[in-house]
């Protein structure tokens, strides 16, 4: 009879040990996998991109004193703010992959940011020159060079404030800003997986730091246009709130639809899928 049984299912004698050694496949339920799915949802969310752009543009308006900053005298700071306003949102992880025409668009946006408000108040070839400079640097600095451009812009913002040693100050602040940026990105990337809402607080903090810089160095200019400043910052805050809502929605969309028990368990015969005692999924 044993011989007959072997003929019926000879492979089974070798299957059983393999079944016991089979490990549970749980990759798509880890925090890492969830963060990846969440990021892909955010990458496809045009409303989040619009909100991010609104936040950046509103912050630019607030930082430049709602157009009160003179592009002729403070051209370096205006250039730096414009570069940061265009390049920083595009460095965020959920920004979609740029296409061939994106560099042109970014250059035009950077130029327009400087030119339009300045042309509104005072038409000057120097203003157009600063706008062209911003557009050119944004066009030249593509891909990873954008990070260097951001560091340079942050360094320039502080370098101009120390006239005695502008280059030293710019380099020092640039290095510090780069270090802080790397640290911040690594911390946020680590916290982002379990608590995605930390991004909301980081956005609030970024706006507050920009405001602190403006209040510290351009208080007389900003004081002339307080209502406009409040309006610009209010729009930026509302943009952050929209971002928070979109991130929360992505968090819900990316949550696992099912969960398997860990570790593997012993289950009856003929279940060749995986050895979990409990499987639960959303109805």
């Amino acid at each position, binding site marked *: 009879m044993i011989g007959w049984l072997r003929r019926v299912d000879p492979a089974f004698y070798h299957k059983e040990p393999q079944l016991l050694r089979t490990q549970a496949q749980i990759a798509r339920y880890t925090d890492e996998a969830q963060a990846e799915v969440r990021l892909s949802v955010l990458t496809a969310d045009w409303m989040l991109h619009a909100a991010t752009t609104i936040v950046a543009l509103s912050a630019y308006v607030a930082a430049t004193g709602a157009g009160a900053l003179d592009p002729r005298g403070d051209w370096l700071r205006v250039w730096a703010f414009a570069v940061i306003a265009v390049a920083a949102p595009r460095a965020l992880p959920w920004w979609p992959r740029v296409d061939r025409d994106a560099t042109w668009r970014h250059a035009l946006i950077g130029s327009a940011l400087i030119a339009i408000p300045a042309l509104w108040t005072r038409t000057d070839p120097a203003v157009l020159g600063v706008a062209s400079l911003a557009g050119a640097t944004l066009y030249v600095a593509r891909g990873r060079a954008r990070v260097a451009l951001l560091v340079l812009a942050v360094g320039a913002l502080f370098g101009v404030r120390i006239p005695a040693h502008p280059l030293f100050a710019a380099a020092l602040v640039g290095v510090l800003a780069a270090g802080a940026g790397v640290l911040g990105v690594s911390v946020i990337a680590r916290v982002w997986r379990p608590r995605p809402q930390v991004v909301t607080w980081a956005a609030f903090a970024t706006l507050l730091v920009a405001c*602190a810089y403006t209040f510290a160095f351009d208080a007389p200019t900003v004081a002339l246009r307080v209502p406009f400043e409040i309006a610009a910052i209010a729009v930026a805050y509302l943009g952050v709130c929209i971002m928070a809502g979109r991130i929360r929605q992505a968090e819900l969309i990316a949550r696992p639809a099912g969960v398997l028990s860990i570790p593997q368990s012993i289950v009856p015969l003929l279940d060749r899928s995986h050895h979990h005692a409990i499987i639960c999924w959303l109805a």
Partner: protein
Amino acid sequence: MTRSSGIELRIAPPIGIVVLGGSLVAVTMAGAPHPALRALVVFVVVFPLLWIALATTLSYTTARALRMAAIELPSRTRAMGSFQLALTLGHGGHAFPAIGVLTNARFSTADIVLDSGPWAEIPILMAGRVATSRWDVMVKQRGMLRVGPFRAAVELPGSAIRATAVFDAAHVIRVLPAVYQLQPFVDALLAGRHLAVGRFQTLPAAIEEYVGAREYRPGDSPKLIHRVLSLRTRDPYQFYVREFQDPSRDDLSLVLDTAPPLDGGSALHRYRLEKAICFVCALCRTFAARRLTVRFVCQRAARDVVTLRLRPLDADLDRLEMELANLDLTGDRATLGRILLREVRRHGAAVIFVSLRPREQVEQQRLPMVTLTPDHVPVFTREVVSQ
């Protein structure tokens, strides 16, 4: 509706609090020396604080206002089968609706615990209303499945806390063994040992009792014809005969091995026990469906031998499955040997021994019975029926 037994608070990451706090201090220090900017500084500082405070307060109060209205789940299920679990929550608050409520349940069976989700979302729950979250649950391990406590988490965007209402209600579901569908040639187990096809006694003995009627078959004694029933039929050539059965006699003894291995390898042995239990369950069902009386014997614990007499009744099979649901490797070799000897000595019944050993032991070879090793089980099994 049941109130939550407690609220679990999960505070925002410290790094987030530090960064935001530092930024608030920086902007306050930068703007304080300029009286002309006072309104601007107040707005810049107060807006995020108000937003966070409002989101935090709403998250906490909403979690506190949640009530558990009902839980829908079966009292028993079958391994490899799935059931639907439903949790109905009510909102006992008066003002704001609960937005984005996430619910989950904890599952545990034996030493395995599943308490990480999945989180089912209730998008919006208006005050005074109820809403239901549903899950499909598949249990693959027989025994007792504990469902609960249940959790409902609220975390509004920007909130500094994640407030989770915990409902301590715990429910127990008995998970019966999986149902195997056996091959039709499983009758071969009884070949030469028992007249499995039907009864051939000509007349009832004094001890036998009436169990029912069936159609007349050639060879049946005319004395057994059920006259009243036969006269009721329209066909004058159709007859029914009475059937009798000895209540003290079983057709089949089925003994299950529950002794742990002597040489380690408990994982493999446990796996074989699971297979054997499902197989025995299916075997009993199959033979009972053929109107055979099965005597099931196994050792449940030390000095505790279970003997179930399974007639072709649903109640008996239910009793068997309840017994099998809690069976474990708690037998011993000596008791098993005594059980086998006793069953073989019983008159008239065929004995099938479902062993966990890969080979038939020498002492078992001497006994007139069928020994099924783990290798035989897949041969007689066609598939697992999920429900």
